[in-house]
């Protein structure tokens, strides 16, 4: 299909593999976006500092792993710590922002980004932190012929799916989920029911922080743990949430997969495709340039036709 | 008999599975005050939004002054002579009362791509605005910030803004909402003075206001019109009494 131009040898098999890679990346994006869409949708707060929570998760993972040598123990240790961090942020900063406009929220949480980026450098130093994939997770399995796939990436898919399932269950089946939904659509009513909405929000934010931290922990063995890593992820997460529809878990999942596949397949195909169309120096750079703009173009197109995203939440 | 000014036929709107407007037929004759009442969640606000053009209807037709307006935007409907007030007071709080009304006049005085001349010094806007304020009894409050006016005055200002668009018909969404008895009384008198000059579609909660002002009343329950008639007929309608008035009184 893509011809034999193939310096990149883009065969059908590779295309399928890239598709899988895209899905895996999508699931990873969902991990990052899940907590953010909860906070954004339910509390209607723009939280730019979500990326910082992701970064903190990665740093804690590095430290705990360094101390214990076990990723699972690190996970167990990380959850209460991130919950605490989330609760603290909510109590100190976020709480005062609920009644403010989005502009204030953007600026205040921008302040949080600056603060956390430097905080980690003060505590952990300027160098990137170590965390190497433990042996038992570093194997490969051959899903497609001649293309061994890292076990750890399958683990990420598993965790992402588990989080998705857990969230659906929580939102639809549990009392907390019911309160969250009710709180989103009618705050005074929930208050009137004698439920402490402030406490509820604090817990939701704490939960969001745990999810962000979990994403950071899962990413740490595959990515550099350093100051500022949250921002790139934050941008992706926002694109996901906006495309999916703010506050919709289902939307976040679908949009994550769309973005993951679009980004991954797009950036591997586009440069080849461009060369196929015009074989020149210009195409050599235009391909990658276009690929890096791809998700933003996709977002603009989707929002042009569906200004509330693919799955607009009914409330609001 | 003359043609109705507003004629609504088989109007429908639903949100997800919830039906908000259910095959509604409705009309307002020239000069008439036609009130719509109904319990909470009956779909009154949805109905107003559909008439005003804020919500797109699923099906059905809306004819105003002989024109089908179903496909028109809210500003277009305003220009055709349909003016509305809001349930939640929505005057421009940072503007003075005079500027609020002047803005309304401006909306109907050609396009506003005029970037240079100072709007608040523009006699063609200010003078008629002052006159309307005088008419509604807010003349001496003209230079007060709208946000600083008393609640009842803000509601009056809102109607003044609607009047400033030289409408054929007023769409009033609970003009006495949130008012005390005294303020309600003033508003009632105020609307009574306007009676005859304008056709009105009046959404109202306060039964005294409805029964003292309306020529006709339609009762809305779950998006359906269950009865239409004179206030007296409605008061004596058994179905209405059980569905609505019974609970309310």
């Amino acid at each position, binding site marked *: 299909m893509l011809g034999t131009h193939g*310096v*990149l*040898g*883009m*065969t059908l*098999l*590779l295309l399928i*593999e*890239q598709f899988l*890679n*895209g899905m*895996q*990346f999508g699931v*990873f994006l969902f991990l990052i976006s899940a907590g953010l869409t909860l906070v954004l949708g339910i509390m209607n707060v723009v939280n730019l500092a979500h990326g910082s929570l992701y970064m903190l998760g990665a740093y804690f993972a590095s430290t705990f792993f360094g101390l214990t040598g076990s990723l699972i123990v690190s996970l167990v240790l990380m959850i209460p710590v991130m919950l605490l961090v989330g609760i603290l942020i909510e109590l100190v900063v976020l709480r005062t922002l609920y009644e403010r406009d989005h502009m204030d929220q953007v600026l205040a949480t921008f302040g949080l980004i600056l603060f956390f*980026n*430097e905080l980690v*450098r003060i505590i952990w130093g*300027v*160098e*990137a*932190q*170590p*965390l*190497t*994939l433990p042996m038992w997770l*570093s*194997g*490969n399995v051959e899903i497609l012929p001649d*293309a*061994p*796939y*890292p076990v*750890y*990436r399958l683990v990420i898919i598993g965790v992402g799916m588990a989080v998705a399932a857990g969230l659906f269950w929580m939102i639809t089946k549990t009392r907390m989920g019911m309160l969250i939904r009710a709180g989103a659509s009618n705050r005074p009513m929930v208050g009137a029911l004698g439920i402490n909405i402030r406490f509820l929000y604090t817990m939701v934010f704490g939960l969001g922080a745990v999810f962000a931290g979990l994403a950071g922990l899962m990413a740490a*063995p*595959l*990515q*550099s*743990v*350093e*100051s*500022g*890593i949250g921002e*790139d*992820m934050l941008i992706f997460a926002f694109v996901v949430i906006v495309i999916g529809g703010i506050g919709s878990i289902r939307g976040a999942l679908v949009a994550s997969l769309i973005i993951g596949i679009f980004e*991954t*397949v797009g*950036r*591997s195909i586009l*440069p080849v495709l461009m060369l196929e169309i015009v074989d020149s120096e210009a195409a*050599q*750079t235009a391909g*990658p*340039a276009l*690929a*890096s703009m791809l998700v933003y173009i996709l977002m603009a197109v989707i929002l042009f036709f569906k200004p509330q995203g693919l799955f607009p939440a009914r409330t609001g | 008999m003359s043609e109705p000014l507003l004629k609504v036929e088989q109007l429908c709107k639903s949100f997800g599975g919830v039906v908000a407007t259910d095959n509604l037929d409705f009309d307002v004759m020239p000069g008439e005050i036609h009130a719509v009442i109904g319990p909470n969640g009956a779909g009154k606000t949805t109905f107003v939004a559909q008439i005003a053009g804020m919500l797109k209807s699923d099906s059905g037709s809306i004819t105003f002054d002989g024109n089908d307006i179903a496909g028109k935007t809210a500003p277009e409907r305003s220009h055709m002579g349909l003016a509305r007030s809001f349930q939640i007071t929505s005057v421009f709080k940072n503007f003075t009362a005079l500027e609020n009304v002047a803005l309304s006049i401006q909306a109907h005085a050609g396009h506003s791509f005029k970037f240079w001349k100072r709007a608040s010094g523009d006699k063609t806007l200010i003078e008629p605005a002052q006159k309307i304020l005088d008419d509604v009894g807010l003349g001496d409050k003209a230079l007060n910030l709208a946000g600083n006016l008393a609640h009842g005055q803000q509601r009056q200002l809102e109607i003044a803004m609607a009047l400033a668009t030289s409408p054929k018909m007023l769409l009033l969404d609970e003009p006495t909402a949130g008012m005390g008895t005294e303020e309600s009384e003033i508003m009632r008198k105020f609307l009574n003075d306007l009676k005859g000059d304008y056709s009105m579609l009046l959404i109202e909660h306060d039964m005294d206001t409805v029964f003292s002002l309306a020529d006709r009343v339609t009762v809305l329950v779950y998006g359906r019109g269950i009865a239409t008639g004179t206030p007296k007929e409605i008061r004596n309608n058994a179905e209405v009494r059980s569905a609505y008035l019974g609970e309310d009184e």
Partner: protein
Amino acid sequence: MKNQVLIAAAAAAAIVTAPAITAPVAAESVKVGYMQGFAGGRGIFGRYGFEGFELALDHLGGKFGGMDVELTKKDTQHKPDVGRSVMNEFIKKERVNFVAGITWSNVLAAVWKQAARSKTYLISANAGWSGMAGKNCNPYYFQASWNNDMIPEAMGKLMKKEGIKDVFELSANYQAGKDMLSGFNRQYQAPTKGKILYKLGNNDWQAEISQIRATKPSAIFGFLPGGMGVSFMKQYKAAGLDKTVKLYTVYTVDYGTIRAHGTNAIGSYHTTFWNSDAKTATNQKFIKDYIKKYGKHPSMFSVQGYDAALLIDLGVKGSKGNLKDHKAITTAMRTADIKSPRGKFTYNVNHSPIQNYYKREVIADADGKPKIVVRGMVAEMAKDSHYKKCKMAW
């Protein structure tokens, strides 16, 4: 009333005379401005660079060419326009004689003209923008590091010498990334199995890894700076690609990042200008004192900062105390007669170093921890490829 007038007059006099009092003192010292980006994750280069610079100043007893030093350090925030503002302040307010530092090519491109116009010496402790090696070369600009494409050129030479028959090229889709590739290919001159220009800030490499695997190259040549390199190395290892494809990188592995790379980097190769294993007294003292002062191993950026300071020292010495004697300063600095940890280097016509490049490998030490070892010289006294465009008279 009278008193008040007197006080006012005295105060006015003090204000007027204040600059006059400080002026003569200033003339006896060398004023140096150090500008680099220090904030955020990218601040690491500035940190190492300045530490090297400080250590050199220590070694020189706090003096340049025997003169007292007035050092002003400013943060450019990694922004070209802030860099320009800082340069302006250095020149017009601090009235410095020398400016050193600068991490990024774009900051260098934004500030060099101001320095040249005002005849202020500018010594790049890192940024190796090719524009400076070519048409913009001038008597007031000196390169203490390298030109962007020289390290990849050395890599190209190395991989050719080692007989690697084909490579997959991985570089960033921005200017430096493209410079790296052209530098590499200038020397390597063999077929490539493929090339990817990735997006700045890319962190998920699985798609690239799949693509590389599909083309079955013998080796990868990668320009993967900072965190992107750490991420790539982790994912390259996790995907098991290290078993079939060798990895050669530039600007990716160094002492500043080795801890973060961990065991992932073991078995990879890179080139650099600094023979960190050299047994020379200068190099050993540099490393020992650096570790003593900062508690960590110096990186190549530290060497660059260190040498930038030594170059200023050299220039001041040449001026014999007359900092207005630009001819003497330039002539002295052109000799590059300094005790650099990297060993001897000389200057080309464009003030770009002619120096050795080395192959380094990451191996596992006795504890299984990663260790950088030098595997010999790749290029001896190599010149950059832009100097012919420089029309500077010596």
